[in-house]
C-alpha cells in the first residue's frame, strides 16, 4: 500500500496501518540507536520511545515533509536526549552486547574468507579496530550525520531537517567525520 495511504489510515486509528509503517522503518531506527547509544538496552528504550512518540503525534503530521525524515527527526531527538541524560559519558565498548551474543563490527567478515587467508583476516581485524576507534572519537552529531548519510542513505538536506539544522551544518559535520576517518585509516587502505 502507498505510504501516504498508510499514514492517513494510521492517523484515523488503524493499528495495522501503523504497524506497517513501523515495520517499514524500524530496522533503520534501531540501527541508528544501537550505533549511537552503544547499548542494547538504551537502543531498546529509544526504539520504544521513538515509535510511541510518533504514534501520539502522528495526527500532527501534515505531509509537508517526507515521513521518513519526520520519523528520523523524532528518533534522533530521542537518541540525543538519551546521550544528554548520561551525565557521565559511559565507556563505549567496541563490542556491543545483544541477546544473541556480542555484536562486533570487527567480526563481520565471512568466516570462510577469514580461514582461507589468515593474514588478510588479521589486517581486516586491525582495520576494524581502527574504524571502531575512530567512530568512538566522533562527536554524537558527527556520528549521527555519518550514520544517516553513509549507512542509511539520507541526503544531507534531510539530515539537516532531521537534526533541526541546516544542510550546510550537516555537510560540515559530515566533512569533519570523514576527515577524522581519513586521518585514522588513510595509511591502512
Amino acid at each position, binding site marked *: 500500500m502507498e505510504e501516504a495511504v498508510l499514514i492517513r489510515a494510521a492517523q484515523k*486509528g488503524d*493499528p495495522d496501518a*501503523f*504497524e506497517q509503517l*513501523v*515495520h517499514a522503518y*524500524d*530496522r533503520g531506527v*534501531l*540501527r541508528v540507536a*544501537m550505533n549511537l547509544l552503544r547499548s*542494547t*538496552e538504551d*537502543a*531498546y528504550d529509544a*526504539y*520504544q520511545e521513538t*515509535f*510511541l512518540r510518533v*504514534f*501520539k503525534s502522528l495526527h500532527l503530521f501534515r505531509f509537508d515533509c517526507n515521513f521518513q525524515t519526520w520519523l528520523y527527526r523524532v528518533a534522533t531527538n530521542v537518541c540525543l536526549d538519551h546521550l544528554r541524560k548520561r551525565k557521565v559519558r559511559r565507556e563505549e565498548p567496541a563490542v556491543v552486547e*545483544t*541477546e*544473541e*551474543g556480542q*555484536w562486533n*563490527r*570487527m567480526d*563481520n*567478515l565471512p568466516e570462510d574468507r577469514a580461514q582461507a587467508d589468515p593474514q588478510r583476516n588479521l589486517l581486516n581485524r586491525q*582495520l*576494524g579496530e581502527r*574504524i571502531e576507534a575512530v567512530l568512538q572519537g566522533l562527536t554524537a552529531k558527527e556520528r549521527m550525520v555519518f550514520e544517516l*548519510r*553513509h*549507512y542509511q542513505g539520507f*541526503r*544531507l538536506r534531510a539530515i539537516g531537517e532531521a537534526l533541526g539544522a541546516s544542510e550546510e551544518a550537516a*555537510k560540515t559535520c*559530515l*566533512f569533519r567525520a*570523514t576527515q577524522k*576517518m*581519513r586521518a585514522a*585509516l*588513510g595509511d591502512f*587502505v
Partner: protein
Amino acid sequence: MNCESATRSFSLFLYGELSIEEEQSFQDHLEGCAGCRKAFEAEKAIHQALDAREKLPPAPLLARCRRDLKLRLDVTAARPAPWRAWFGWWPALVRPAGALALVAVGFFAARWTSAPRPDNTLDPMVSRVRYVQPESSGKVRVVIEDTRQRFLTGDPGDEQIHRLLLAATRESSDAGLRAESMDILSAQPASNELRGTLLYALEHDPNPGVRLKALDALKPYASAPDVRGALAKALLADDNPGIRTQAIDLLMQKKEEAMVGLLQELVQKESDSYVGLRCQKALREMDASVGTF
C-alpha cells in the same frame, strides 16, 4: 577547483552530494592531478571498508522491540485523546466499556472525595431508567438515574488527586485509564503506596500492556526484596513473553545466587525461544550451568 577544495569534495562526490557543476569541476581536476587521483582512490577504499562493516541489528532484538511496542501501543490506543475526553464523549455512551469506565470513575470519585460541588459538574453523561410506575391518572412516573461527570484539577502530588490516581490504577475497568494513571504516578516521588500499587498491577492486571508499564515503573525499585519477589513470580507465571523478558532484565541488574535456580527452572519449561535464549545468557553471565543435574 584546486587540490584543497578537491580533497574537501572527495566524500561529497562519493555520496552524490555535489551539484552537476561541482562534479564536473571535480572530475576535471582529478584528470589533471595525479596526487588527488591517488588520494581519491584511498578515499574510495575507506568507503568500501566502511561498507563492509555494515550490519543490521540482531533479529531477536528487533523482534523483542516490535513485540513490546505492540503491547504498549495497545494500551496507549485505549486512552482517549484529551480533546475526545471533552468534546467527543457521545460515542462512549453507546459503548458498554466506555460507560463502565465512566461509572467506575464516578464511583472512585464518590469514594475518595468530598461531596460534589455544583461548580465543577457537567451535564448528565449516562441516564438510565431505574423504575417505572403507572399512575391512576393514566400517566407514568419514570425514575431516571443520571451519572454525572465532575472534574478535579490539581497537582499529581496533591493527596486527593494522588489517591484518585492510585484508585484508578488499581480498580478502573478501562486499561487505558489504568495505564494513563500509572504513567502520571510513576513520575511522582517513590513511595511504598505507589510501589504496592505497581506490584499489584504487575501481578493482577489482566492487560499485558499495563503489566509491562508497571514493570517499567518498577525499575527504580528493582533491588527491593519485595519487588524482586514479584519479578521472580512474573518470570515463572506471566503468560506474556515480553513481560518475562523484562523481568529477567530487571532481575539481572542485581545478580544474586538465588536467581540461578529460578533461571534454570525457567530454561526447562520456557516455551518462547527468545526468553529461553535470554535466560541462558543470564545464566552464562552468572557462570552457572544452563541445565540442572
